[in-house]
């Protein structure tokens, strides 16, 4: 596995692409393009305000698929959890992002980029939640729960 091919440059270049994609989506739609918000609105489409989000997601899959196909570091994929654990996690992520009003992109990229205080609080909180969860799962007796 070519794991060593991945460098900090990939991280930064990828971040810049994510930022550019967010910019285009914001310029073209007039909305803040958080992934969780856009996805939840695809689930409950409003006439005349749904198609652009679907098209965005089509592009998301196309862009990711092309990268995975043609760039080795982008194809690195190491799932760590069983599918039932992933299912529980998905429910938590869906529920939490709606309750908290955003995810890594809405709060973490768009909100922080615009200097929003609520986004900063949310980002620090979900980071802390993720760090605490990984700590519990990897460094305490709870590890057997996710095996």
């Amino acid at each position: 596995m070519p794991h060593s091919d991945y460098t900090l440059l990939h991280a930064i270049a990828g971040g810049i692409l994510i930022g550019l994609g967010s910019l285009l989506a914001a310029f073209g739609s007039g909305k803040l393009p958080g992934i969780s918000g856009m996805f939840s609105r695809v689930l409950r489409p409003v006439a005349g305000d749904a198609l652009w989000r679907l098209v965005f997601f089509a592009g998301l899959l196309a862009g990711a698929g092309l990268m995975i196909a043609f760039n080795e570091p982008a194809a690195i994929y190491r799932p760590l959890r069983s599918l039932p654990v992933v299912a529980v996690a998905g429910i938590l992520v869906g529920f939490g992002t709606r309750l908290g009003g955003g995810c890594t992109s809405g709060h973490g990229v768009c909100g922080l980029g615009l200097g929003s205080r609520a986004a900063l609080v949310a980002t620090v909180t979900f980071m802390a939640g993720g760090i605490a969860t990984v700590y519990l799962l990897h460094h305490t007796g709870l590890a057997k729960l996710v095996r």
Partner: protein
Amino acid sequence: MKPRLLVQLLAGALFGAGLAISGMLDPARVIGFLDLAGDWDPALIGVMGGAVVTFGGGMLLRRRMAGGRGWFGRSLPCAMEMRIDRRLFIGALVFGAGWGLSGFCPGPGLANLAALRAEALVFAPAMAVGMLLARTGFGVDRE
């Protein structure tokens, strides 16, 4: 395709390509970033930093050059004036727990569908269920 939609297609493609090249689609890398007490992998700071500076800088530039105008007659979005309340904290904590549990946040959870990865095929519908639960059970729908 209308130019307005073409822009969104391109936006999504850039976003998806960025997620893939940055390593965000790899759950082990994401969990490695959250594992401060383990073999910590700082790379995702680069992802976040690159994205925040690009988006924040681009919005600032556009505002300087074109005022509050976006494209196709739309105005630029403003920062969410969201209340910092219990909901925000609890929601972010629950989201963070799910993120740490799986290594997927919403973008990568969806983008991994492009490779038909089993985890994504489970995660994406589960996330939809979580969102519907939040909406029907708690009437939550924040922008």
